[in-house]
Structure formats: structure tokens, C-alpha cells
């Protein structure tokens, strides 16, 4: 039934304007050089960080990948840190952003069975998660890591031992770093209720399984720390109860062992070339030396060989990146 006339005249006082759709601006999505998206380096002006170090991230995970790429010999990469972790692939930094040609080559390498490349190759963003970085490095260098069963180490025993050192670094050393980083001041902190990390706390049992886990103390310490409210108390689990003295004493022993194992070698475990363990060790040592607070930092400064090694590797890693 058509609209009655009086109502039609009433509606004519409120005309409907339709505006043309707004198309997004043509943002330059193509990177001209391979770019690594990282967590921002420490930007505090009061710290005496030289301008060359400002390309090195303050997050251990990002720095580890930066070191890996640089130690394998690649150069002329750019970095950017204006993207938050939530905006990155898989919710974690670092990500690798490649120019179109490199992205096409990497896609062809990763999916060799695809015969017809996607028609909208123009639209794909050449962004890759961190776990694909080794594949890209292999492709650029023309080297096949999978063929090397020893993964760059001297022998099988060294390769197994490298796993042990990785466990040590990612366990006690990471825990000590977490408790000694300058914390964001929150109310929970002021009440002394526990340490917070910069990333959100891990999901509870009821939410869906998440592949990304923020490295809080609960995932790093073994045995997992007790809740602040205690296991046997009636209150529900909240916070983490961490004994600083216990963590620091284990950390002291860990750094002593690390220094002992490095000795005067050029690379860890006596390898002739840098290995992923070296990248990881560099990431931790750099973060401790530059960002950590006193009792944790001083342990590393006491070991001259670690400081000298970190300094030497730092210059290599720094040289590979530009802003």
C-alpha cells in the first residue's frame, strides 16, 4: 500500500542523502627492502643508549630473530616498530615484511605443489610470521638447512647440549630478566601483589586454546610458581608468588655456568659458525646488560668473557639493520 499523503509530506521534510562510498587510500603496502616488524627499542632519553643501538629491539623474542638473521650473514634490512603486537600475524612480533618479488619466491618455495599462483598476487601482503624466517633466510642464501642434520653444531653431542642450554636460558635466565625489568607501575604492583609482564596474562581454562602464550613467570619457571593466595587457602588462585632470592640464586649459578661454557671460544659450544644458540644467548645477554636492574645486571658484568662476546656480536647484529 503506498505511503499516505500526509505522512509522505512529513517525510519530505527529512530527506535522505546518500553519500558516495569512501575508498581507502592507496597505502603503500609494498616494502622496498625486507623489513622486520619488531617491538620498540627502549626509547627513554635518560638511558645512555647510543644511536646505533636503537635498531635493536627491547624484547627478547624479537632481538633473537634479529640476531639470527644478522648472524647468518644477511644485511641491509630495515626495522619498524610502530605496529603493536596485536596487529601482527599470530598476535606476536616479530613479523617479516617482504617486497613483492621476494614474497612471490618465498610463497613458491613454501607451497611447491601450487601450480597456479593466485590471480590476486598483486593484493597479497608479503607478511610472514617469525617461524618462517629461517625458510626465507635459507632461500636468500641459497642454502638448505634441512640437509644439515647437525644444525651447524660440531657433532650430535653438541647439538643435544645446545637444547640443554636453550632450556637454561629460556628458564631461569628469562625468569630473572622478567623480575628485574623496569615494571610498568600498576596498582597491583604498588600493593606488592606480583609482577606483571608487558603482555596480557595467559588465558584461563575456559577460553579457547591459544597458540600464542605470553611468556609470564607461570610458563617460564619450573616448577610453576604458586598462586599468591596460596594453594591451600580458600581464596581462588590469583597472582604469582615468586621467591626473588631463590630465582636470583639459581640465575647466578646459571650465568656462572654459561660463562664457564663459553670460555674463550668464538661461538658457543665451540662451533665454527654462529648457531641459533648464539642468537638466543646474545638476545638474553643484551637485554640483561641494557635493560635489567642491578642485581641481575651485575652478574653478567662480572663475567668479562660474556661482556666481550656480547659486545662483539652486537656490532655484527647492529650492522645488518637500518631505520
Amino acid at each position: 500500500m503506498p505511503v499516505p499523503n500526509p505522512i509522505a509530506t512529513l517525510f519530505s521534510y527529512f530527506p535522505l542523502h546518500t553519500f558516495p562510498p569512501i575508498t581507502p587510500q592507496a597505502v603503500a603496502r609494498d616494502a622496498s627492502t625486507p623489513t622486520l616488524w619488531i617491538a620498540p627499542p627502549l626509547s627513554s632519553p635518560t638511558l645512555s643508549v647510543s644511536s646505533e643501538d636503537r635498531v635493536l629491539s627491547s624484547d627478547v623474542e624479537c632481538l633473537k630473530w634479529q640476531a639470527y638473521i644478522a648472524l647468518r650473514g644477511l644485511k641491509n634490512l630495515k626495522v619498524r616498530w610502530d605496529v603493536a603486537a596485536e596487529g601482527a600475524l599470530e598476535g606476536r612480533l616479530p613479523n617479516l615484511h617482504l617486497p613483492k618479488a621476494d614474497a612471490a619466491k618465498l610463497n613458491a618455495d613454501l607451497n611447491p605443489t601450487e601450480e597456479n599462483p593466485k590471480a590476486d598476487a598483486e593484493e597479497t601482503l608479503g607478511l610472514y610470521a617469525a617461524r618462517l624466517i629461517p625458510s626465507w633466510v635459507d632461500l636468500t642464501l641459497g642454502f638448505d638447512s634441512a640437509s644439515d642434520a647437525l644444525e651447524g653444531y660440531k657433532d650430535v653431542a653438541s647439538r643435544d647440549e645446545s637444547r640443554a642450554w636453550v632450556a637454561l636460558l629460556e628458564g631461569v635466565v628469562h625468569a630473572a630478566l622478567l623480575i628485574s625489568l623496569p615494571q610498568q607501575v600498576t596498582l597491583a604492583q604498588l600493593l606488592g601483589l606480583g609482577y606483571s609482564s608487558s603482555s596480557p596474562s595467559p588465558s584461563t581454562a575456559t577460553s579457547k586454546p591459544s597458540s600464542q602464550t605470553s611468556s609470564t613467570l607461570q610458563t617460564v619457571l619450573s616448577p610453576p610458581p604458586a598462586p599468591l593466595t596460596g594453594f591451600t587457602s580458600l581464596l581462588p588462585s590469583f597472582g604469582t608468588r615468586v621467591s626473588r632470592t631463590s630465582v636470583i640464586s639459581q640465575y647466578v649459578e646459571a650465568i656462572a655456568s654459561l660463562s664457564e661454557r663459553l670460555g674463550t671460544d668464538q661461538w658457543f659450544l665451540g662451533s665454527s659458525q654462529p648457531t641459533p644458540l648464539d642468537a638466543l644467548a646474545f638476545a638474553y645477554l643484551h637485554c640483561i646488560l641494557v635493560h635489567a636492574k642491578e642485581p641481575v645486571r651485575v652478574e653478567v658484568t662480572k663475567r668479562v668473557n660474556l661482556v666481550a662476546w656480547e659486545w662483539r656480536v652486537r656490532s655484527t647484529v647492529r650492522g645488518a639493520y637500518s631505520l
Partner: protein
Amino acid sequence: MAHNLPASEIKLYVWPKLWDIPSFDPYSLSAILYLQLAVPGKFSVIECTDPDLSPSGQLPFLVHGQELVASFSSIVKYVANLAKTEGSTYPSGDVDEFLSTAKRSQRNAWLAHVEANLGNLVASALYATQENWEGLTLPGLASLFPLPQRYFVPQKLREAYQPRLEGAGLWAHPPPDEEEKKKTPFEKELRKKPTIDKRKFLLVFQREKFVEKAKPILDIYSRLLAENTFLFGDQISSLDTALASRIILLLNPPYPEPTIKDLLTTSYPNLVAHAQHVQEQVLGSNAPSIKTESHRHSVWSLIPSGIFSRKSPIPKLTLEKTDEERHVDRMRWGFVGLVIGSL
């Protein structure tokens, strides 16, 4: 000032016994094995279900006189130091004495690896797998705790491990329950077609995933052990106790879902033999027996320890007061009485 110091015996507070194993917690078990090697007969084990007594909030912890030491590696270090300071009482305190400095640093790294990776496997077998949790661990744990706590503490213990195991990919999420909901009450129930059991597939897939994760880790230990009796040659070390305690916990309990147990017995006989060897040497018939007591349950454990100060496990020193102190005390009470009387 005369001091009446109580005779200091080493007391180790651990999680209690379950399934014929001295403790169901790998850290407590390795601490018991280590102390039995280092200071046999000179320590007593106290079975305790209240981890909040410990300074770090976790068992095991050691009390020796006025010293409180928590965590396995700190206990090892403390007992090794005892051998240096009180060598006559504790001659064999440092079990790792035969290791060179280089080997000691490797031992620290391997200990971290064992606690992290093999510990994750043990935790996943005990807590993560739904069948094992409901069939074995939960009833076992509930039998240990007193009445109100047995309903919530085991779940809290399990939740403490969850972030770690999820990160390692060893947490078994229960398959979603399939509910057949009728859209309207008037819809007739369709005759059930023989559908493929999705739950079974998910369980099998999870089991395969666990085995895939466990194999590289167990391969590493198998290679490290090679043909030797112990990890560092012919002499037992603290690392052997740590490794053996976790292998024992993967083998001995009667798991309803024995995936990792079967994997160990079929593919890694040298690890099984090593664990049995350590157990024989440390807890066997020749070894001195361990004094065990159990810690009294206290209702105060229901209140979080930070709010009210609870009884600490360290016994307070009783000092006899000298004449001067007694005189000062009498004067003090006299002054207080004078103040109150004058009001």
C-alpha cells in the same frame, strides 16, 4: 647469654607418598633421592600437604636448624656446602664432587633441560591427560588432603601447570561434548545414523601428538646416557637422581592412559634400566631406611599466609634470660602497672 640450641637435624618437607613411590612430585622425589645419597641416615622426611609453608610457595623445602632452603637446585647447593663446612658430620654431602668445573656447568644446563622438558612430560601424564587426571591423579591427591581442601586443592595444582603445558603443546583439551538438541519440541528424533566417533579420533590424535613431542626429548637422554651406567660415567650424580625420579614417575604409577609409559618401555630400555639402577642403589634393600613423619594438618592453612603470620616450620630458639634481663623485665612491667594505675 646461654643458648639452648635444639640439635639440628636435616628435615625435608615433601609431598606425600602415592602409588608406592616416596613422593608423587618429581622435585620432591629427586630431593629425597639426593639426600639419601648425600647424607644417608642423617635426615628425616616430613610428608606435608601444605606448600604454603615454604618460602617459595612450593615443596620440597629443607629445614636445618634456622636455615630454610627451597627448590631442588638450592637444596643440592646447600647440602654440598655442608660437606665443606661440617665435613665430619656430613662427609659425602657433595655428591657431584667428582665433576670438573666444565662438567658442573653442563650439569646445570642439563638439570634445567630435565626439569623443563621431561618435567613437562611428567606433568602432562599426571595432570593434562583427562583419563589419567580423572582416573588416577585426582583420587590419589584427594586422599592426601584433609576435608575441606580435598575439594579444591587438586584443581588448583592442576591449574598451576596449565599455562606451561599449553605453551608446550602438551595440554589435552577435552573434546567438545556433542549434544543433540532438538530445534523445536515437535521435531521427531531422527534415527541415529552410524556416525564416526569424533571423540575417539580426537583422543587418538592427541595421543599421537604427545608421542611426537616426547620422542625427541627421550632420544636426547637416551643418547646422553648411551651405554654408561650413569650420565657422567660410573659415578652417580645429582643429575641422575633428577632424571631417574621423572622416569620412575612415568613408569610406576598405574596410568589408565599409558601412552608415554608404553613408549618408554618399548623404545627406551636404557632409560628404564638407569631409573631402576638408581632406585636400587638409593632406595634398595642395602640402603639405610628413611625416617618419615607426616606433618599435622592445620585449619590455619585455609587462610592465605600473607595475611596472618602462621607457624613457621623453623623452631624458635629458647634463650634463657640472664638476671639483668629479668630485672629489666620486672621494671618494665612495674612501669606499665604504674601507668595503668595512675589513669
